[in-house]
């Protein structure tokens, strides 16, 4: 007796593919860190930099020597010291004292040294950001 070959029409369910894809898009959009920084600076480069954990407090000195604390422009170093001190008081956890310090590589000592001192006076541990690479 001859057996008939069955022709199964197997269909992959693709109806929900679009939903999955859009969910993934939303996931990526939520997870992405959109750069809000408007200041321009080039970080210093050094081969010995290590991976640092993210911190809640950030101080930036841009290429024009303008100082920012948490994205807000500061008038002087005293404002940085008080600001850092106030932010640390809110969160004194193990990571709470770390201050991300981003400074343009060409900024002069007269600008960055008082800021670094102010961060320390405010109780912060400086995490000086730099890029991995040759000078």
């Amino acid at each position, binding site marked *: 007796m001859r057996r008939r070959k069955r022709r199964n029409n197997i269909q992959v369910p*693709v109806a929900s*593919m*679009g939903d999955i*894809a*859009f969910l*993934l*898009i939303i996931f*990526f*959009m939520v997870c*992405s*860190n959109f750069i809000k920084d408007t200041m321009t600076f080039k970080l*210093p*480069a*050094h081969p*010995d*930099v*290590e*991976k*640092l*954990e*993210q911190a809640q407090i950030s101080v930036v*000195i841009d290429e024009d020597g303008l100082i920012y604390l948490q994205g807000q422009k500061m008038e002087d170093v005293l404002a940085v010291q008080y600001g850092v001190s106030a932010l640390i008081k809110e969160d004194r956890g193990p990571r709470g004292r*770390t201050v*991300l*310090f981003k*400074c*343009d*590589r*060409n*900024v*002069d*000592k007269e600008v*960055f*040294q008082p800021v*670094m*001192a102010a961060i*320390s*006076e405010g109780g912060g*541990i*400086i*995490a*000086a*950001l*730099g*890029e*991995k690479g040759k*000078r």
Partner: protein
Amino acid sequence: MPSGKDNRRKSNREADVPVSSFSDIAFLLIIFFILVTSLSQTTGVLTEIPTGQKSEAPPEKTTIVNIHDDKISLNDEEVTVNKLRDQLVGMDLHNKSDNEKVVLLEASGSVTYQTYYDVITAISRAGGAVAVVEEE
């Protein structure tokens, strides 16, 4: 005899939105996001500058690093960045007491942050604590 109007059939059209290409568009957007997103890692060096009372003179046997116009010297001997790092590592600062770990950093003249960064990275990586010398 029925009029032409009555004779016309009601067309029962089903309007379908073409959604078959939605997933293609969505996956293209995903690929775009994956490519554009830069998974940035924060890199740098952790350094704690001691604060407290200012002292007039440094204790004896304190290591002093001086930067003058982007030239580095360690205990009055001019060194390169690599040599500074090697010499500081050779001092075995990790296993020394807190007072002996202190490295005085004096910067004078026009010093850029890049040079300063090279020095504080070398000190921190060698296990030292940076103490900044302030000019009067």
